[in-house]
């Protein structure tokens, strides 16, 4: 990868399918061809793992060899001529496909991988029309490998991606190939299950349906699911994910490649943490003094409170609100005569780093930095402190709380403090200590239902998107609710899209200058000129 991006790397002249081409020296044929938009099939190759070269599907014809060569390991060189579609290359691929399939079960109709299975996909292109294999198929084990993962051994093509992952990336080494020849299959040591914070990734990288996640087993067919690019909110790393959902329910999260953030991986804590979306405590309707009310009533009430806060207006934010929401918070505050904005964030955990240069952040929320970039670097620090002190002294008349935490672990001091506000409105994901006794409770959106941007711990701004189909569940967009309230209060002329709000934000907030939703790359971009305070100096939790 680095060869490709480093402009210093000398170029090599070679020939791909008859076309003279140039590529940066040091690349493999496979990588160079890919950069030139010629795809070569692969099973065992994975850009994040060492090269095994065992599946042989990527064989191509080379002018330097009598035999076909594997493109995932051979490197390009001056004068090299490669054919990916010559009779030799095609025959080599067909041969491998035939061998892959002879002992492979006819499982596609019941296999969870169907729809995203490399073997299934390639077999349409390169597989034999009809099996010439009249023998009995080999049988290998189907068993549990760990609390979250099963293996269907008959489907395993022994590409060793999963083994290499546990050796090289998680560094936990729970997987191995046992036996040899066509008895080979992936297994764990009998008393040591696969159970590491990154384990779920082996299911993603298994090119076939041999490794199956218990969480997703038989849950949905791949092609029926709605797929939304977003960002994990489990910690401040902000791993890029694809949220896969069916009929308005999240079925699973899978990582999206982002070399600057999470490479190809994500952690299990983030991956499996979406059930809170369906928790019993989930707030689904507005209430006023404990009684259900229409959305409009609730919005109107809050608008009136804003027009006349009756003294100091307090706004307590959390690091789950998007930058766009934070911007609206600032607008509200700037219209009030007397406003205090402060933040609360969940306690930090410990960061975990893995040999594969993947880190789970110790900061267990997605957007502290983004909120700080909008509301000030001290919002979770001394500003939060000031708000709490004012609350404790009974100096706050109207308080708006953003309680979007998936796992509200009430911070006693704060819970006591917010109760001292004369009036309290809570945008809440879940009912609990934060909503108890609140005059207004308004359903909050989970991070997977928001539309906007988060900045991760490196200050990289990334898009989050709601997995719901557009127009489906507008009730859950905090940004829209806030704008509704502001419109009624006469503070904003009309409701805009998240992208439009971001444009306003980018115009006035220096760290966001020059950025826009539409130009933000899929992998996000660093917030220009935003230098967060070093962790522990001031920004830490109160």
């Amino acid at each position, binding site marked *: 990868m680095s060869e490709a991006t480093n402009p210093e790397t000398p170029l090599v002249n070679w020939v791909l399918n008859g076309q003279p081409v140039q590529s940066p020296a040091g690349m493999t044929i496979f990588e160079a061809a890919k950069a030139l938009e010629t795809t070569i099939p692969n099973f065992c190759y994975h850009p994040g793992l060492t090269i095994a070269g065992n599946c042989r599907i990527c064989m191509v014809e080379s002018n330097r060899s009598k035999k076909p060569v594997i493109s995932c390991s051979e490197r390009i060189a001056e004068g090299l001529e490669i054919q990916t579609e010559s009779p030799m290359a095609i025959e080599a691929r067909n*041969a*491998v496909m035939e061998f892959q399939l002879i*002992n492979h079960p006819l499982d596609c109709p019941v296999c969870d991988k169907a729809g995203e299975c490399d073997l299934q996909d390639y077999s349409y292109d390169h597989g034999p029309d009809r099996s010439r*294999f009249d*023998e*009995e198929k080999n049988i290998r084990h189907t068993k549990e490998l760990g609390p979250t993962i099963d293996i269907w051994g008959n489907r395993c093509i*022994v590409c060793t991606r999963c083994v290499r992952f546990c050796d090289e990336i998680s560094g936990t080494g729970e997987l191995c190939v046992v036996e*040899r*020849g*066509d008895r080979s299959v992936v297994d764990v040591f009998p008393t040591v299950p696969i159970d590491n914070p990154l384990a779920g990734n082996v299911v993603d990288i298994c090119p076939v349906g041999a490794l199956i996640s218990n969480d997703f087993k038989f849950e949905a067919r791949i092609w029926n699911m709605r797929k939304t690019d977003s960002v994990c909110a489990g910690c401040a790393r902000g791993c890029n994910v694809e949220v896969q959902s069916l009929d308005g329910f999240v079925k699973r999260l899978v990582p999206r490649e982002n070399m600057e953030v999470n490479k190809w991986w994500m952690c299990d804590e983030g991956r499996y943490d979406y059930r809170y979306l369906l928790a019993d405590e989930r707030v689904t309707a507005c209430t006023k003094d404990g009684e259900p009310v229409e959305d409009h009533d609730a919005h109107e009430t809050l608008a009136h409170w804003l027009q006349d806060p009756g003294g100091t207006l307090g706004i307590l934010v959390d690091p789950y609100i998007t930058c766009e929401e934070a911007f609206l918070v600032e607008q509200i505050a700037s219209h009030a005569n007397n406003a205090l904005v402060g933040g609360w964030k969940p306690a930090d955990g410990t960061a975990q780093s893995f040999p594969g240069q993947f880190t789970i952040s110790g900061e267990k929320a997605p957007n502290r930095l983004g909120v700080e970039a909008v509301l000030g670097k001290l919002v979770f620090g001394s500003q939060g402190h000031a708000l709490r002190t004012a609350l404790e002294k009974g100096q706050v008349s109207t308080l708006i709380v953003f309680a979007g935490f998936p796992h509200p672990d009430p911070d006693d001091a704060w819970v006591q403090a917010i109760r001292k506000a004369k009036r309290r409105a809570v945008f809440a994901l879940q009912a609990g200590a934060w909503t108890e006794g609140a005059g207004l409770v308004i359903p909050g959106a989970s991070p997977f239902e928001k539309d906007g941007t988060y900045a991760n711990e490196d200050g990289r701004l990334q898009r989050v998107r709601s997995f719901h189909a557009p127009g489906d569940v507008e009730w859950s967009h905090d940004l829209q609710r806030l704008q509704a309230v502001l419109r009624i209060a006469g503070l904003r002329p009309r409701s805009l899209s998240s992208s439009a709000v971001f444009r306003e934000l980018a115009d006035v907030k220096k760290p966001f200058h020059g950025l826009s939703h539409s130009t933000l790359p899929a992998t996000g971009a660093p917030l220009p000129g935003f230098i967060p305070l070093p962790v522990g100096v001031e920004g830490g939790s109160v």
Partner: protein
Amino acid sequence: MSFRKIFTPHLGDPNCHTLEFYEKTGGYEGARKALRDWEPDALIDEVKASSLRGRGGAGFPTGVKWGFVPKQTDKLKYLAVNADESEPGTFKDRVLMERMPHQLIEGIIISCWAVGIHSAYIYIRGEYVHAYQRLVAACAEAYDKGILGSKVLGHDFHLDITVHRGAGAYICGEETGMLTSLEGERGQPKLKPPFPAIEGLFGCPTVVNNVETISNLPYIMEIGAEGYKKIGPESSPGPKLYCVSGHVEKPGTYELPMGVNLLELINDHCGGVWKGRKLKAVIPGGSSAHVLSADECDVAMDIESLAAAGSMLGSAGVIVMDDQTCMVNALLNVMKFYHHESCGQCTPCREGTGWLEKIVHRIAYGHGKLEDLDRIDTVCDRMVGKTICVLADAAAFPAWSFTQKFRDEFIHCIEHGGSPEVKRRHPDRIGGGLHV
């Protein structure tokens, strides 16, 4: 020049494995000479000039291989002696290690001096317990007498030898499989390049040579490249150990010049085909070599001649089959071997070896179809030249040559309900289930 045996002349003596005996018969003179009289580079040239070629199977020129090892390198260099000897029909290295361990050690000293190596490993197959013990004892003697260790034979040259036991896997005879196994892993061959001479054991430049190859070196030191080249054919000269097994009167290890005629070997040295029967076929170089039919056996047993005859010298494991042998059953046996021994990394080998065994099994057990013969042919086609090591090819060669050269027999089996040998042995199984 009359042929002088160098490996086997003393095998009659029960003490020939001891240091005392070895030194009494001129042992370690070659190593002394090398250390005293030869600059390493010149020594490599001398070995090149001798045209010594590897005895492990591939027949690569030994001196040339040594020349590939980088001269200037910060890394350590290693010698890994291939004593995995697992090619069916091969047992010469076992004889050398059990009976002439000091000859091997002397050869190792000479090789290491030439290439600038201070650490050698002998990778011996796990089953060879007796040979292992002999080697360990011989090394201990050699350390004890200052032949190994910090001052080899009193010279300013240090050398350690470690004998390392394998644990039962044919594939660990393939050089990179052996290196991975030595590194404590599953013995799976590695991708080449890099070749071991550049990046081998522990990521360092490594020479891999067979036991017999190395055991030639003391003799080359003794008579010089010129003298050595005069033994047998010029392109692959030297004394050679032939392992003869199967249907001969006197199976055994025979030391003869390279290029001995195969029929002469069988008839004159081994007492001919057993029980007065006729010759049907010979595998001349371990089971990976193409089989020769009786009428192809008038051939010189050297690298070039056998290649010209469409087979190979390989490991010089000569397996003789008489006219009552069922070739279908024989091939089934060979296919079972490769199926069992494929390391399983590469798709074509992992799947192909099993497939071939299953087809041949079906034929032998009375379920064959005529199209199976073409199928064997194309399955082999799809295996050859597409894998990390050449085990896949080694499995395909016998499958091809047996079915081509003895096609009538296969057809007969297909048309008459299976192999006569199977019918005789398991009348109940013929026509029954597939996996019995």
